[in-house]
C-alpha cells in the first residue's frame, strides 16, 4: 500500500533514468538525509560519533571505491589497506609541507595520489585475472605497508614511525569536535556516493560491467580493456585514498602503518561482499554491518547482565561474527542490497498476494 508505483507515469526517458524514479524512494532518501544532517546531531553523543557514525561513513567511501573495482568491474583487489595508507600519508605530507592548504584540496589531492598509485598497481590486471590478480594486489598491499614503515620521508622522520596530524580548519571553521567531523564526513559521503552512482549508471559504468560480465564481448563492441580496467582502478583508488585520508585525519588523528594493514583490506572486502557486489547502497549496508555488529556483540553480554571477562567477550564476538558472515553468505550470497531489492519487490504488491 505504501510502496505503490501505480499512477506514477514516466513521460520521458530522463525521468525513467532518474536515480530514484519512484516517488516513495525519493521521500525515503529525503528522510534519511534529513535524519543524517539534522536528526543525528540532535541525539548523538561523543561515543556514537567516534565509534559508530564516523567510522561507518568513512569506510562506506572505501567500500564504494572497492565496489567500483571489484563489484562493478570484476577485478579482485586485496590492496585496499595499502591504497588507504597512500591516501592517509599523502594527506599528512600535503598538510605538513604545504601549510594553509585548504583541507578539501588536501583530501582531493591525496585521492589523486592514491589514484596514480592505484593505476600503477592496476597495470597487471591487463594481463592477469581472478585469483592471480588478487595475489598481485596483495603484493601491492605488502609493498606499500613496507614503504610507509621503512621510507622515513613519508613519516617526516618521526622516530616512532607514527604520525600525528594537527588542527583541521575549513574556511575558518575548526573541524575539531566530533559533531563537526561527522557533518564534514557526511557531506563528503553524500557528494561522493552521488558521483559514484552517476558513474556506474552511465557509459563508464556500463563499460566496467561489460568488462566484468564478458570481457570478450566487451571488446567487440568497442570497449578497450585498457581504458575500462584502468579507469576502474583510478576511480576506485581515488575513493579509497580519500577514505584513507579521512580515516587518518578524522578518525585516528595519529597512526602508524599498522592501521592500514591487510586486515583493513579484508574488512572492506567483507563489507562489499556482505553488502552486495555491484551496488552503491550495498556498500553502505555492508559498512554498517561490519562496524556495528562487533560493537553490538561486544555490548550484548553486558546488556543482558551476563558476567563475562573482557577476553571471553572478545573471543565470543569473533566467533559469532564469523558465523554470522557465513550464515548471511549462505542465505543471501548477493548481499544486503539484494535483500533490500527483494523487500521492495514484495512491498510493491503488499498487502495483496499478487
Amino acid at each position, binding site marked *: 500500500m505504501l510502496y505503490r508505483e501505480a499512477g506514477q507515469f514516466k513521460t*520521458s*526517458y*530522463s525521468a525513467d*533514468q532518474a536515480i530514484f524514479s519512484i516517488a516513495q524512494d525519493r521521500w525515503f532518501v529525503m528522510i534519511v538525509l534529513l535524519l543524517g544532517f539534522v536528526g543525528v546531531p540532535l541525539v548523538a553523543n561523543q561515543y556514537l560519533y567516534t565509534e559508530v557514525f564516523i567510522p561507518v561513513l568513512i569506510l562506506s567511501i572505501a567500500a564504494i571505491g572497492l565496489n567500483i573495482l571489484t563489484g562493478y568491474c570484476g577485478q579482485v583487489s586485496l590492496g585496499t589497506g595499502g591504497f588507504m595508507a597512500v591516501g592517509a600519508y599523502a594527506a599528512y605530507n600535503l598538510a605538513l609541507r604545504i601549510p594553509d592548504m585548504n583541507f578539501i584540496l588536501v583530501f582531493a589531492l591525496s585521492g589523486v595520489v592514491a589514484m596514480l598509485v592505484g593505476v600503477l598497481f592496476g597495470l597487471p590486471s591487463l594481463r592477469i585475472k581472478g585469483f592471480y590478480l588478487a595475489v598481485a594486489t596483495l603484493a601491492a598491499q605488502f609493498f606499500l605497508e613496507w614503504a610507509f614503515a621503512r621510507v622515513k620521508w613519508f613519516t617526516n622522520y618521526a622516530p616512532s614511525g607514527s604520525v600525528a596530524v594537527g588542527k583541521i580548519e575549513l574556511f575558518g571553521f575548526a573541524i575539531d569536535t566530533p559533531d563537526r567531523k561527522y557533518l564534514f564526513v557526511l557531506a563528503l559521503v553524500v557528494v561522493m556516493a552521488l*558521483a559514484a552512482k*552517476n*558513474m556506474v549508471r*552511465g*557509459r*563508464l559504468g*556500463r*563499460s566496467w*560491467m*561489460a568488462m*566484468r*560480465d*564478458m570481457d*570478450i*564481448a*566487451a*571488446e*567487440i*563492441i*568497442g*570497449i*578497450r*580493456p585498457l581504458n575500462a580496467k584502468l*579507469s576502474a582502478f583510478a576511480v576506485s583508488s581515488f575513493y579509497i585514498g580519500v577514505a584513507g585520508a579521512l580515516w587518518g585525519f578524522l578518525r585516528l588523528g595519529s597512526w602508524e602503518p599498522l592501521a592500514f594493514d591487510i586486515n583493513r583490506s579484508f574488512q572492506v572486502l567483507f563489507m562489499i561482499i556482505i553488502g552486495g557486489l*555491484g551496488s552503491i547502497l550495498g556498500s553502505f549496508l555492508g559498512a554498517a554491518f561490519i562496524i556495528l555488529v562487533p560493537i553490538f556483540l561486544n555490548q550484548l553480554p553486558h546488556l543482558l547482565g551476563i558476567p563475562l571477562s573482557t577476553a571471553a567477550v572478545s573471543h565470543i564476538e569473533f566467533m559469532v561474527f564469523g558465523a554470522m558472515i557465513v550464515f548471511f553468505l549462505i542465505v543471501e550470497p548477493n548481499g544486503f542490497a539484494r535483500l533490500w531489492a527483494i523487500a521492495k519487490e514484495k512491498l510493491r504488491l503488499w498487502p495483496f498476494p499478487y
Partner: protein
Amino acid sequence: MRASAGQGVAAGDIVLSVEDVSLGFGGVQALTGVSFDIRNGEIRAIIGPNGAGKTSMLNVINGFYHPQSGRITFKGKTRSKMRPYEAARGGIARTFQNVALFKGMTALDNIMAGRTLKMHRGVLWQILRVGPALAEEVEHRLKVEEIIDFLEIAHIRKIPVGRLPYGLQKRVELGRALAMEPNLLLLDEPMAGMNLEEKEDMSRFIIDVNNHFGTTIALIEHDMGVVMDLSDRVVVLDYGRKIADGTPDDVKRDQKVIDAYLGVGH
C-alpha cells in the same frame, strides 16, 4: 537509425575481402589459403561441416585471431593486425554462437553498452550527469528504444539478461550488435538451439535488418533451409579450405559440397 550503406562504398561493391588467409594453432591448421569477398548490402553465408573453420574465419575478420598469412581488406583498408575494439571502431559488429551477453546487466543496459563507441561525454560530465551528459544519455536511449521496438523485446528491457530464456537472449545480443550501427554484421549461428517459431522470427529480423538498414551481413548457420532462403551468396569451407563459393543453388549442386556433407572419404 541511419542506413549504413554508402559510407564510401556503394551498394554491390566489395566491402570486405579475404585473400589467401591461413591460420594455424600449433599443429592444427584451422584455415588454409581461404579467399572470398563480401559485397556491400548482401547476406553472405559461411557454411561447412563441424570443425570446418567457420568460426575461426569470423574470429579472423574481427581481430580475435591474427592469421599467419593472408590479407584482409575492409572498406578499402588492408590490415595486418587488428584488435577487436579496432574492428568495432571500423564498423564490424558480431554475435556469438553461445550467447556472449553481459549477464548481470539488464537487456536495456546491454543494448546501451552497444552504443559505447557513439558516446563521447567525459568523465566529469558523467559524474555530474546534467546538461550535455544527460542529453547524450537520453539521445542514445531513444536510438536503443527504436532497436528494442524493432526486435519486439520491449517487455523485457529491465530484466537482467541472465534470467531470460535462450531465444530472447539471442535477440538481445542481436540488438546489442545493431546498436553499434555496423557496416558489417557477423552472426555466428544466430539460430542455434532455437525451435521453429524462434527460427522464423530470427530469420525475419535478419532480413529486416538487411532490407531496412542496408546492413551487410555475414552469417554462419547449420540449418540448410535457412541458409538457402536467406543468403545471396554462400561460401563453403571444409577442413579449413574453401571448397565452393556461389549462389545457394550453385552450391547445392556442387559435388564437392555434397561429398563434404555426406562424408565421402577425403
